[in-house]
């Protein structure tokens, strides 16, 4: 971009002596700027406070996700997907695993579908809380940010209870999930929702009639439904314009077609509508989880954990090594706490029965030759999951919009090509259109409502 004085402006100044000469100013917003969540650079051409032109530069967080996915086996990609949208990693896990399952032509047990739905809806709430909270903070409402992060903490406690981690969860597996929900999950979950609802009500009171907040978000960053669709924008950002596309309703996956929920839509496509849509979606997500917790089918129980004789895993290995199978029959392995919920009693309800895809329960891996071979064939170098040759595209509704995985397999143990369609990529490409012609100060709420996540944008 040039920094020379605007020729038309200087010509006008020459003609009329009273008019002051103006020149455009180039302003770099970012890459490291408190209002740029993550690292991104907006080069704005300013005429006073007004933005005349803008260019968005991305790629500062490029980590070669798609290249790395070609070098590891199918389950090895899952930790990388955690780091795409790191505010709602469970949805990424689910999207990737369902794409590979489509490639393999398998499905997971019903209970496993419910578990995935429950956790991805909890993740959606944490994502929206982060987005709304951070936007509010940038507009001066620091209290709201603290309240929302508090609520997110309650939900992340739930996630930690199930997965063992808060952020990089790596919970889904191709053909199942790592472990079943813990036995005492329902009560803490309902309590966390109670707290979250309280926080949402408080935040609504603090923001919806707040003069500073409303003045800055109403009527700024406007985009029409047609423009949004032409740019490929999906998710809450699209729904705020009035188009009601939601993958969960329009191309239902897992068990979303059995759950009843509403898709909130806006009408004006400005920052206010995006805020309201996200607030309502959180409520809907909580309703989905509550419904799913009521409807989730109990899993088949093969060994009762209470009566089955617990044997420490190391001891089980020793007994198995000397062939003393009788001693470990009917027992259940007491493994390290991270393996809780993946024992033989739970295994059939959380993972598909396809032996070429999922690891056996630890009891079988230690206790019998079939289990050992199944484990071996999946984890040893050069073995692993081998889907047939083919290509599939599978979309799920991420917190920012349609999150699609396009996977090409050449029949070997690692994917030939993994492509992720990141939802905020499309929104970022439309950002210049939304901020040009507006005031400099409007960049902050508009950019906040994009919910740019560097991990999925730059991959």
């Amino acid at each position: 971009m040039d920094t020379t004085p605007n020729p038309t402006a200087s010509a006008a100044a020459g003609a009329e002596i009273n008019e002051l000469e103006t020149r455009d100013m180039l302003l770099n917003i970012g890459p490291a700027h408190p209002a740029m969540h993550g690292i991104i650079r907006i080069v704005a051409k300013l005429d006073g406070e007004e933005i005349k032109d803008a260019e968005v530069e991305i790629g500062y967080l490029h980590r070669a996700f798609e290249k790395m996915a070609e070098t590891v086996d199918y389950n090895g990609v899952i930790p990388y997907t955690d780091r795409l949208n790191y505010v709602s990693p469970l949805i990424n896990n689910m999207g990737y695993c369902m794409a590979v399952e489509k490639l393999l032509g398998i499905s997971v047990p019903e209970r496993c579908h419910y578990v995935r739905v429950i956790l991805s809806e909890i993740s959606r709430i944490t994502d929206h809380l982060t987005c709304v909270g951070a936007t509010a903070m940038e507009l001066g409402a620091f209290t709201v940010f603290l309240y929302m992060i508090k609520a997110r903490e309650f939900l992340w406690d739930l996630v930690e209870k199930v997965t063992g981690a808060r952020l990089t969860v790596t919970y889904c597996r191709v053909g199942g999930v790592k472990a079943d929900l813990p036995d005492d999950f329902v009560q803490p979950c309902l309590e966390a929702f109670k707290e979250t609802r309280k926080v949402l009500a408080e935040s609504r009171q603090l923001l919806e009639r707040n003069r500073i907040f409303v003045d800055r978000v109403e009527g700024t960053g406007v985009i029409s439904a047609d423009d949004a669709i032409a740019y490929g924008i999906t998710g809450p950002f699209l729904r705020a314009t009035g188009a009601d596309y939601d993958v969960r309703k329009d191309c239902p996956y897992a068990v979303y077609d059995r759950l009843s929920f509403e898709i909130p839509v806006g009408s004006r496509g400005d920052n206010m509508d995006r805020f309201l849509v996200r607030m309502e979606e959180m409520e809907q997500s909580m309703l989905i989880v509550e419904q799913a917790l009521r409807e989730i089918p109990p899993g088949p129980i093969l060994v009762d954990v209470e009566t089955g004789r617990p044997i420490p895993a190391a001891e089980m290995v020793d007994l198995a090594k000397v062939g003393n199978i009788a001693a470990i029959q009917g027992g259940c392995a007491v493994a390290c706490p991270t393996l809780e919920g993946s024992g033989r009693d739970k295994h059939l309800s959380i993972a598909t029965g396809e032996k070429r895809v999922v690891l056996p329960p630890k009891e079988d891996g230690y206790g019998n030759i079939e289990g050992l071979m199944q484990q071996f064939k999946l984890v040893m170098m050069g073995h692993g999951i081998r889907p047939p040759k083919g290509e599939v595209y599978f979309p799920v509704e991420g917190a920012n919009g349609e999150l699609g995985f396009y996977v090409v397999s050449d029949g070997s143990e690692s994917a030939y090509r993994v492509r992720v369609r990141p939802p905020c990529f499309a929104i970022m490409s439309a950002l210049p259109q939304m901020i040009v012609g507006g005031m400099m100060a409007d960049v902050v709420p508009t950019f906040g409502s994009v919910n740019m996540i560097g991990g999925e944008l730059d991959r």
Partner: protein
Amino acid sequence: MNPSELIEAIQGRFPDAVTQSHAWRGDATLVLRSEFLVEVARYLKEAPALGMNFLMDLTAVDYSTFGKKPALGFFSSSGVGVRSPAQIPDPDPWPGPPGRSRFAVVYHFFSTAHKHRLRLVVPVEESEASVDSLTDLWPGANWLEREAWDMFGIEFRGHPDLKRILMYEGFEGHPLRKDYPVNKRQPLIGPVN
């Protein structure tokens, strides 16, 4: 429309353009000659029966090493060779990569009115790695095409500003090509402007 109806509708309208089609795993897929791309894409967008208003995704695949990975021996415990799962006959096999071209540009379309999806695959030769740009039809194609250029070095004719997007301007090569080594390092230079 269901996948097979979609394929028929487009094949009937453009018999010369479509070289191959399949609906493997329910994904309607058409392999298209590159000269017909813009025409077909415009038809997809404007025909009311198709109504593909979304260009959901645009990417490319480098098929140069497809199926060339050294096959590992599979042996049972008695030493008899067994088939790997990939060799077990599939009643409904995938027809394979599109043609002999090195690259394939892959487009995913979606219609909000009819809720159907379609994949277009356009094979591209290495010697003449370029296809027409869809930026006139979908402004969202702008960044997606820049990414495909950045990662694969495929040119998009008629693109308003075809430059790198994720990598920096001084970067050499196109990292998602199969001949670009995973562990290759390049000096990171500062921003050019």
